[in-house]
């Protein structure tokens, strides 16, 4: 018999941040590439919306606009978790070995090591994607300063900052490919509803995130079922 009770994993705030950052990042990649002379050359301008994409100034507006949104979400995210002292997703010692073991287990279909709220590779993915986004935000701001009439950024700084901004873009794209590719594994797909409804199946959490499951707070149990974790555990184990 299947247990269809849910565990609350992602607050509304987290979901808004994730999708806010995801959408603005995608727009920043599209408009960032649009700031490079490539849409005309590679005939992207011949596709629908091509004319819009082919205009450097449109792409600059879009880049600035999505940068403003991204910065809002990034700073909101950093500070809300800092104020609320929530650090579940920060990388820990031994995460690299641990993620290797998890990926190996997924491929060989064997038993995974027990995980907390986030898998070790999720914490690494977070640090990698987050680090690149932060680099892009910092270098992006310097690039914006350079565009102001009143500011003269020294040439050497301008060249370095531009190259870091471009390199971080490439790394971020690799990171995002990895992020999406993670869902090729069936095991990981069970996490997807968490980013939409906020909830995960209890069975999944119990098996895959056993450390987190042991320490669930009342808040994290779906109250719409009107049961506590102990009752749930009892019910599932008696089945």
């Amino acid at each position, binding site marked *: 018999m299947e247990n269809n009770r849910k565990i609350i994993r992602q607050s509304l705030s987290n979901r808004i941040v994730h999708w806010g950052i995801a959408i603005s990042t995608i727009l920043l990649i599209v408009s960032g590439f649009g700031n490079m002379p490539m849409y005309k*050359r590679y005939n992207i301008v011949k596709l629908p919306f091509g004319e819009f994409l082919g205009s*450097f100034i449109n792409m600059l507006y879009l880049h600035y606009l999505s940068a*403003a949104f991204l910065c809002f979400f990034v*700073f909101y995210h950093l500070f809300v978790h800092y104020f609320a002292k929530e650090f579940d997703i920060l990388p820990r010692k031994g995460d690299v070995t641990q993620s290797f073991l998890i990926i190996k287990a997924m491929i060989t279909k064997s038993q995974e090591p027990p995980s907390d709220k986030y898998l070790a590779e999720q914490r690494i993915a977070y640090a990698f994607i987050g680090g690149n986004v932060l680099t892009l935000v910092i270098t992006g701001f310097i690039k*914006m300063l350079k*565009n102001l*009439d009143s500011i003269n950024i020294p040439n050497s700084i301008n060249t370095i900052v531009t190259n870091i901004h471009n390199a971080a873009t490439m790394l971020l794209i690799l990171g995002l490919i990895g992020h999406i590719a993670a869902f090729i594994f069936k095991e990981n797909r069970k996490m997807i509803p968490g980013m939409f409804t906020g909830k995960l199946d209890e069975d999944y959490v119990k098996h895959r995130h056993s450390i987190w499951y042991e320490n669930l707070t009342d808040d994290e149990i779906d109250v719409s079922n009107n049961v506590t974790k102990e009752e749930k555990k009892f019910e599932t184990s008696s089945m």
Partner: protein
Amino acid sequence: MSNGINRREFLKRSTAAGIASVLTLTVGNEIAKAESELSNKATIIDLTKCDGCVNLGTPACVTACSKKNSDKFPVVNEELLKPYWPQPKFEDHSKNKDITDRLTPYNWTFVDKVEVDGEIISIPRRCMHCDNATCLGMCPFGAIEKENSGAVCINDELCFGGAKCRDVCPWSIPQRQAGVGIYTKIAPEYIGGGVMYKCDFCSDLLKNGQKPACVTSCPKNAIIFGEKEELRKKVYELAKEMNGFVYGDKENGGTSTFYLSKIPFEKINDQLKKQNTSPEGPIMGRPLMEPEIENKLDTVTGMAISAAIAPIAGIITAGYVASKRLKGEKTDGK
């Protein structure tokens, strides 16, 4: 008129001061240093004096420029002259190095001619050396530099030849040569297109305290060189005396090149448009003189400010949400 200039200068400096004070000490110091060493040079191109060197085959400034810069012109690897995939074309001027009637990678200045109200006007054309150069700001490789003299220079070792600078320059000044530069070392058929070339204000001469070659070679003294602020004043004085017009002080947010003319630039531009447009569009390397060109980079300043406010808004929202959450936890506990 001087009022408008003062106000603009004032605005520029006060925003500079405001933003500089926000910056960290080190960056602030760099900027302050760059500012203090800055001694902006400029030229007045007096269209009432230039006659296009009617008696010479090629105008003297054009000859002087190409002689002075011959060692900077592109040296092409013939094997790499291939179309820019997937486009069928590539830009090669190496077979036409002698062309002097337009801008090319091998010809950084030329003298255009128009007839307005029965009078022939000769117009030396080249890079204007803009104050907030759009080519520089929007180069995706940071390959364009502005020197303390105000000279805007393309670094031929960093340029990939995507020609974005030409697209965003209001006068489409930089010109591309395929088969040279850093792109040849990566994946020449698929990325990059060569190197962009244009007038560099004779940057090396300026660094030695000398004047640009086109200035010293002009037999009519039609190109005046000097301190920018002085020349700015001077060109308006001259314009007032002759009831004439100035082009280049306001355009693209300000440049280091002031054209002086008795005939309105709108009329000159109408003529230029007729001559320099073909059925396929504008003729490459033959710039127009569109009046009142606004600087595209200035139009994003407001958006930059919103992006600067966004982090603060994010932090405030975070504080609000976190405090509500903590309060909620407390009441839950009761």
